[in-house]
Each structure stands twice: as structure tokens, then as C-alpha cells.
């Protein structure tokens, strides 16, 4: 599954990043395979998602979150 499908307060481990021009941008922010992310907040009506990644809250649009292939851990 991809990170945009996570439910609030669910955590997941990033398995891979789907190829796209934004892949490097995600990686430089720290979205790397093996890292744990937790979905903390959702803006209403399919708005951006806020993930907790190693002490930082990072907001992505759904389309960018869909580039993160993840495995749910809790």
C-alpha cells in the first residue's frame, strides 16, 4: 500500500519510493526506505497529510504521499 492510504495515528515503514521527478525531493526530506512514518493529521476534503518522521512533522499532498510504498506496523 502507499502512505496516502494510512489512517490517522497509524504507523508504517517505508519500503520503497515510486519513480517520479519528486523522488529525490522526498528523499532529501528524509523519506527513505526503512524509515518509520506515522500519519498524524489530515486536512479536510482530501487535503494534505501530516506525517511524523523522526521528530519532525512533514506535510505532503496525497499525490506525493502516494509515492511512498509502505508496510503498516501498527
Amino acid at each position, binding site marked *: 500500500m502507499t502512505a496516502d492510504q494510512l489512517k490517522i495515528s497509524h504507523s508504517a515503514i517505508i519500503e520503497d519510493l515510486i519513480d517520479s521527478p519528486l523522488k529525490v525531493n522526498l528523499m532529501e526530506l528524509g523519506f527513505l526506505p526503512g524509515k518509520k512514518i506515522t500519519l498524524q493529521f489530515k*486536512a479536510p476534503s482530501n*487535503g494534505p497529510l501530516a506525517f511524523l518522521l523522526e521528530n*519532525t*512533522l512533514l506535510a505532503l499532498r496525497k499525490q*506525493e504521499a502516494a509515492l511512498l510504498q509502505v508496510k503498516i506496523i501498527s
Partner: protein
Amino acid sequence: MAQTQPPFLTKPLKIALIGNPNVGKTTIFNQLTGLNQKIGNYPGVTVDKKTGAMIYQEQVYHIIDLPGTYSLYPNSEDEIIAHRVLNQLSEIEKPDFALMIIDSVQLSRGLFLATQLIDLGLNLAIALNMADMAEKSQLEIKTYELFKQLGVPILQTDARHLKGMDQIKELIHQQNFTNPGPFIEAKEFLDNSQLQDVKEYFELSNDYQAYQILRFGLKDKGLSEEKRSWIRKKLETLTINLEAAQLEETKIRYKRITEVIEKVLVKKSHQEVGSAPLDKIFLHPVLGYLVFGGILLLIFQAIFAWASVPMDLIDGFFADLGAWLSSTLPAGPISDLLSEGVIPGIGGVVIFIPQIALLFGFLAILEDTGYMSRVVFLMDRWMRPFGLHGKSIVPLVSGVACAIPGVMAARNIGNWKEKIITIMVTPLMSCSARLPVYIILIGLVVPDEAIFGIFNLQALTLLALYLLGVIGVLVTAFGLKSILKTSEKSFLMVELPSYRTPRWKDVLLTMYYKSRTFVTEAGKVILAISIILWILGSYGPPSQMDAVREIQEEKLAAASSEKQIAEIEAETSSLLLENSFIGILGRGIEPVIKPLGYDWKIGIALIASFAAREVFVSTIATIYSIGGDVEDDLTIREKLDTQINSNTGEKTFNKPTAFSLMVFYVFAMQCMSTLAIVYRETKGWKWPLIQTVYMTALAYFAALLTYNIFS
């Protein structure tokens, strides 16, 4: 490396400050340079070039504050500048040393950029900032171990609490910067045999620089066309997949950084740090928006309440200065030019400072506390259908007070298309300068009555005008979205930083420097247009002007009472304006504005108020020879109510005409300060001209429609 600067060295050393966004870089820059800052421009981009002088031990050091970036991969204009300066592509801005600021809590992300800088061959030192936050998060960084791993001098600082600033100064003074050699060799992620001629052509010392130039050089329009075409040619023959190399570089770099971090970072507690409790409210799907609305209301309340005091003072001061000059200097064209053209022109620039300073003060507080990116998070979804970005909300909201700081705030938007759309629509928000025009016209034609017992009709009309502006914004943005083409992909990746109390010194410095930028950059254009408009308004064909003066002087000689004299004087200024070049222009455009319900007198006011909307009121006052105190709304209103349109024989300011005028002012550009600032922000006359033509056309047709609906 520890050596003191030889005394004969006259050229100051240049130190570039670099770091991720939100790491406290600006605070450190402010602490090092204080009021010795200069804001200039980088060629080819709209990024502010922030430089400052640091004076320490009687030596002067040149500090360059580079825009925050996560990596050397440039995505926005900001990052192109960081890329250009750090790759030493620009001879003028070439730094001698780089000081990398890292957020101690975000060590791995900071090291990503830091190790890229090492690989570029820069002489580097690292300041681990926000030491207090690391402590709170139960993190300990073994700095000596980090120094051993990277081979670069390391400092621990806490800029918010002013800790470690002297150590930074001392480090710069000692020139304690080193380059330990590559953290990663370029050959680990690409075939470096093809980079040899790049190194020779650009006179580079290492492969990583060559790779950076090949990969990103074309993004930088500051590079000469000769060099760009060389890169283009080289790229055609290259067999390396640079994008794949970049991904590979990123992976290897993070892998090695993770190894370093395992050695230097001690987590004293394994409890996970969650997000701030405040976010449960601020990012709440309902409460979040209510809080945002409340904050906006507070800010506008403050701006309208606080800015009006200094604005009235400035207004009064320049009026007095003008009057004093005209009474002191010998009468003549020079005295008139100074007292009626130049001084009011300067006053027209300075009058915006309270609003600009306050608005930027509030924006700085919101930014500094970390709240602003929450707003971006909440609003992005509602902006996107209109081709705007979550970050567009700041300019749009500022536009309600004044479009100038709004347009200036649009530069934070990385995507070109979204930035242009934001700049194009921000002046359509009803700013505070439209308010006097609205108020006088509403007072003329809308009865001061309540409907349904509670809603005041006049207040409702005012609200409708503001809403009309917002509709104009959305429709225009939507239209531009489908017209403008870009290959850039829009994305939102934004950090929601931890909440912090604002640093007042930084807030004050932002207010100061933003106001100064406005005065120095836009001021010239505004002053020039004011003077031109003044000349057009005070001079006309000599034969006509002299005839008016003669007749009026005769009348004046015959006048008996003071009241009569005042009336004649008011009539004189009205007649002179009528016969001036602006008067002639006003008559000239009458056929065009007649369908809107305006006569040539209103035409004159339209032309004169091109400088600034609020001039409409004072011009109308002059042209209808109201005289006396033009600040008194009631006098103007009563006089205007009795005016008869020479074309129709009806009241000039009847309902259709007044509503038509209100709608015209909702949409029309009518503000040269905005024009000047759009020119500055878009680096050319193309967009401000398109914008003026578009807004004027929109205003014209909307006013035409309004006139026909009401008549």
C-alpha cells in the same frame, strides 16, 4: 588552520551561512551583523541577496545569508541561488568559507547538506544549533566524535538564547574552516571519466562540482549563454544517466550518514516524541479554520487600529512640509514642483510604511512561531482548484490591508506559475486604500437603514464589495490556471516546525528591512509617476490657463467678504484643473466612460487617482470646488449630492453611477505602488502591464454591467 588574519589583508573575507529551513540561520545572521545588513539582488532571480558586515576584533567580515535549502539540488529560485553561490559559479559572490547551521534535532537531514558541501570542496565549519531543543528531546550529540567522523570543526550553539555567538565570531576570526576531502567520491555513483573536460572547461578541482554543473547548470539563468550552450552540447554526448546518478548519490549519502549518526547520537530516552498538543487544535478540521479566522481578524483589527495613527501623522507632516516650503521658497515653478509634486510624492511612498511594517511584523511572528506552515497545510486544498498554492494564502490575506506586502510575500512560492497567478490576483483583494472611496460613495447612495432589524444596509454593501473582490480573485486565478503553461510540477512538501516563541529582534529587523526595500525599490517609480501626474494636473495650454487666471483675479478683486474669496479660490482651482492637461485628458476619455455613467469630471478623477485610489476623493473635492477641509466626509457628500451631470441633466452621483464607480474601484489597478512592486518582483514590465490592462478592462466591463443593471 588556526591563523590570524594578516593585517595587510584589506579585502574582507566572505563567509556564506547555509542550512536547512527553520534551523535558526536568520537569527544567527542577525546576531552576527545586526543593523549592518544590506539587501540587494542576485542577477536573474527575485531572491533577496542578504549580506551583512560582521565586525570582530577590529576586522570586518562579509557574511552572506543564503536561502534555506535541504540539499544542493535546486527546486526553487531560492535554491538556485544557494546552488550558484556554493558551487562558486559567480565570481562576485564566491565565498571563502561556508558556515553550515544544523538543527541538532534534525541531525541526519542537516548532515545531508553538510556532506554535499564537503564534497564540493568548500572549507567548512558546522554549528549545531538549537542545542536546547536537543536536550528537551533527550538527544545527546557527541561532538568530538562527529568532528572525527567528518573532519570539520563543530560548534554547539543556541541562537535563540544567544549562546555560542561569540564562539562563532571567534571561529570566523580564526578562520577555523577546513575541507577534509570527499565524504563520498563522485565515482561511487557515476562514471567520472566523462567529467574530465567539464572540470577543465569550468576550471573545477573535483568531480562532484563537475557533476553538479552538468546536472543543474542549465537551471541557473545567471550562467552565461556561452557556458550554457557548452553544457547543452556536453549533455548530448554524455552516456551517464544523471538522474539515476542523483538518486544513487542520495541513497549512498544517507546510508553513510546513518552510519555516522549511529556513532555520534545518543538517545537518552526511547520514548517517541509526538507532535505538539497545540496541533490538535490548530490542525483540527474545524477548529483549525476557526482559529485561523480569529487570528486574521485580530491582525486586521490591529493594522486598521494601529496603522492609521502613524499614517495620519505622516499625512499631516508632509502636508505641513509642503505648505511650509511653498510659503518659504520664492514663488515659482520650482517651489510648486517641490511643494505640490515632490513632497506629496515622497509622502505617498512613506505613507505605506506603517501598513507594510505592521503586516510584515505579523507575518514574521506567524512564521517564527511555526504557525504559518500550519496555515499552508489547512489552506492548500482550497487554493489548488484555482491554480494557487497553500502558500498563496499569505499574499491574498495581506492584500486586504495592502497589496504591496502581499505581492512581496509571493516570492516564497517556489512554482513559477503559482507565483505569477498569486501576484496577478493579489491586487484584486480590496485593500485599505479603496475604503475611503467605498465609504464616500456608499454614503451618497445607500440609505443608513437596517434590514431585517439587524443588518445595516451600508455595512452589507461594503461587505458585498469585498466579496466581489474575492470573486474577482478566484475567477481570474482560475482563468490564468488554464492559460499559463509550465512544465514545473506543483508539489507541497513542507515542514511543520515545532512551536516556538517569536524572537522580537528578528521580527523588528524584518519590519525594518522590508520597509526599506519598499522605499528604495518601489519608491523611485512612485515618485516619478507622482511628479508626472502633478505636472499634468498643474499645467495646461498657457492661453487657456492664463485666461482662467485673469477672469478669476478680476472676480477676486471684486470680492467683498472672506466667504466670497474662499468660494472664488475654490472655483479657481477647479477651473485650472479643468483646463490642465489632465483636464483635457479627462474630457478626452469622456466618450469612453460615458456608458459607465461618468462625466468628464469623474474622468479627471479617474486619471488623477491612477497614482493611488484614495486620490479620487481629494480630486473630486477639488474639481467640484468643494474647498475647505476635504477630510470632512459630510461636506463632500453634501456637495456631491447636489451635482448635476451635464450630459443627462440628472444628479451626477445617482445610484447607477455611484455603484458603477464602486465596482470600477473594486477591480481597477489604480495604484502605481502595486505596479512598481510587481515590476520589481517579476523582473520586468511584462506582467505589471498585462495586469494593469486586464484589471482596467475588467473594471470597465464590470462597471458597464453595473450601470446598466441599476439604471
